[in-house]
């Protein structure tokens, strides 16, 4: 099953390859544009072909991610999904108020985090021990902020606010607040 680590690794590879190509093209262009060439014409077919590539790349990205990244469909259809577990969390005065000190999550179950802010706009993110992000969402006061997630590795996760809420906000960290158990 794909997790955030896999997705970001794929993104790193793709974007790095793109950067290498783009930089190479500009270096080649900068060299060639100062030289006499056999032809200096740019065909309209080449131009429209390039436009077609942009259209395909621009829109297919979302189709690919919709069909390969599991949390996209899960998120769009979360209103029609019954969660196996639910945690109601409140945020107030730059503090997360958790339903339990240790929130235990069963492996492969759908878990709903419903986070309510009583004052400012915050963020709600889960992070691994190595500081990499599992997921996050914004927590807007006066609105429902819920996210559905499935965990597939035994791990302890840290809750951290992922949105700036004033100078006091950077301390909004609760280490090992979510524990995933039961994975083979």
């Amino acid at each position, binding site marked *: 099953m794909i997790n955030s680590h896999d997705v970001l690794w794929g*993104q*790193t590879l793709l*974007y790095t390859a*793109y*950067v290498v190509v*783009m*930089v190479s093209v*500009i270096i080649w*262009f*900068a060299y060639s*544009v*100062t*030289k*006499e*060439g056999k032809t*200096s*014409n*740019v065909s*309209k077919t080449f*131009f429209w072909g390039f*436009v077609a590539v*942009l*259209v395909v*790349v*621009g829109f297919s*990205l*979302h189709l690919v*991610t919709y069909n*390969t990244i599991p*949390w*996209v469909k899960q*998120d769009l259809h979360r209103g029609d999904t019954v969660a196996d577990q639910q945690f109601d969390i409140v945020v107030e005065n730059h503090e997360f108020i958790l339903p339990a000190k240790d929130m235990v999550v069963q492996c492969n179950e759908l878990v709903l985090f419903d986070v309510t802010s009583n*004052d*400012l*706009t915050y*963020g709600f993110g889960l992070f*691994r021990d*190595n*500081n*990499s*992000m*599992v*997921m*996050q*969402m*914004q927590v*807007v*006061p*006066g609105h*429902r*902020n*819920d*996210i559905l997630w499935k965990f597939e590795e035994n791990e302890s996760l840290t809750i951290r606010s*992922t949105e*700036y*809420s*004033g*100078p*006091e906000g*950077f301390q909004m960290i609760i280490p090992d607040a979510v524990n995933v158990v039961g994975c083979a």
Partner: protein
Amino acid sequence: MTTNTAPTPSSKTGFLKTLIDGNEGGLKADGLTPAQKLSLRFVVVGLIYFGFAAIEGMLMRIYQIEIISFIGVEQYFGILTAHPLVGIFGSSYMIVFGAFLFVIPFMMKKPLWSLKVGQASFLLIAIGTFTFWFSGFISHYAALYTLYWPLPADFDQFSALGGSFFIAGIALVMVGTLLFVLNVFKSIMYTPEGWEQQPGGALLSSALGFTGFANLFRKEKKEHLVPLPVAAIARGTVDVALNALIITFSGVLILVYMVWHLAGIDLADTAIDALLYKNWYWWGLDLVADGLVLIFVAGTWYLLAMLITGKKLFMQNIARAALAVELIVSWTVWSHHLLSDQAQPAILKIVSGELVTAFELITQGLAIFITLATLWMARPLKMTNELKFLLGGLLGFGLAVPAGIMQADMGLNRILHNTQWIIGPHVHVAIIVGLGMTLYAAIYVLWPLLTNGVKLYSQWMSNVHFWGTLVGGIGMGAFMGMAGLQGMLRRTIYFEGEFTPYMWLAGISGALILIGFVFFMINIIMSVGLKGLLGIFTKSKLDTKDLVPAD
């Protein structure tokens, strides 16, 4: 632009003489027209504010490597709040407005509508920027440029008095901006004294793209009355105006809360819906990032390509159409900033956040292609400063726009939002490499016209500036991006050294940008001389509306 081959001051006296008088006599301020002085004032103050933003940026880069003891947390977030605003309004707006107030009369072949209104714009934006910067420095007002409600009205964390001055400074900038908008459209439409009556409505129609749109349905096509770069400026200026109105409206709202608080009455912040506020504010704010910047930049690339090659633009009707599409896209694209807001309607996330945003890849890709094709068709070209900086600018947006398209995806945004990825490979590469190098190219190409042909002091320094900005800008974005992919957030502080190796590399890259900028400023000052530099700010001795001196 002509340059000396190397800085060869024979002695300290020679160096000091050049510093004071400029290179080979430097800038003769007495020979500058009011129009030249106006544009140069904008550009000089814009560059000074870039220096502010660059130093602030370096302070924050160092802070992420090791906490600086004399900068408290409140001060750090105050810097974080002022930094982008000084960079956008104090620097980018100033340089762009100064250049455009020269380019429009230059391309339209008629004087600027009002030099006085131009001067008022200059003063209001310069003073407004200093006001919000200074009030943030003193009071540590730190609601960030995003101002997510109700943070700007959270008086448990921020001083209402300091915040009032901060918002008042922004308001001054917005008034100056609206005066710029007025000057742009009047300059396009008006009839100068003694001229045959100009078709104001038709000129405006051409500038905004209505003529081009109507031509799609006409058998006999009407000619474009306005040159393509002016059309780009006009369309970008529409977004400037809308953005100024939204920011002014939001600022007034925040000021109301501040003033009532100072009067001893706390208004209920729940009276404003935080999500609705976030939508309208991002709608307005995004008119800068995804609107006027992209349109102005594309227009500047086209202008540069035409001036560098002396030829017409490749596929110029398509370029005009793409600018019109970009304008409409910029009004409907804001929701990609709310992909992680769970209460945001899914339809807005998909249509505005993902699909409309994808158009920016197309419009910006087209602009890059058209510019490169125009240059290619005129080869061989000499690798001048304006050409090399233009290529740097194209590369910057070539890297930054796809990075933005990736994060404007519901799947990827879930794990990228508010990480260093957003602010590194996307924002800073776009601004420092893409926008910055495009503006430097414009400065180099306009330099002879603005200074009456002052010779550049050192090509070597110009090269240091070029490579420092290019390598430093891309490097900083790359290392911030790597940290972001490892989970490092923006808008926060890490005390345990979690991402120190990346931050060291980003810091070294940032230092390269700053070194490049310092060399650029030294080069400019040595070229024009301190006398010439100060002379820019005195009243012109030439009583003319012409752009450049008659002789």
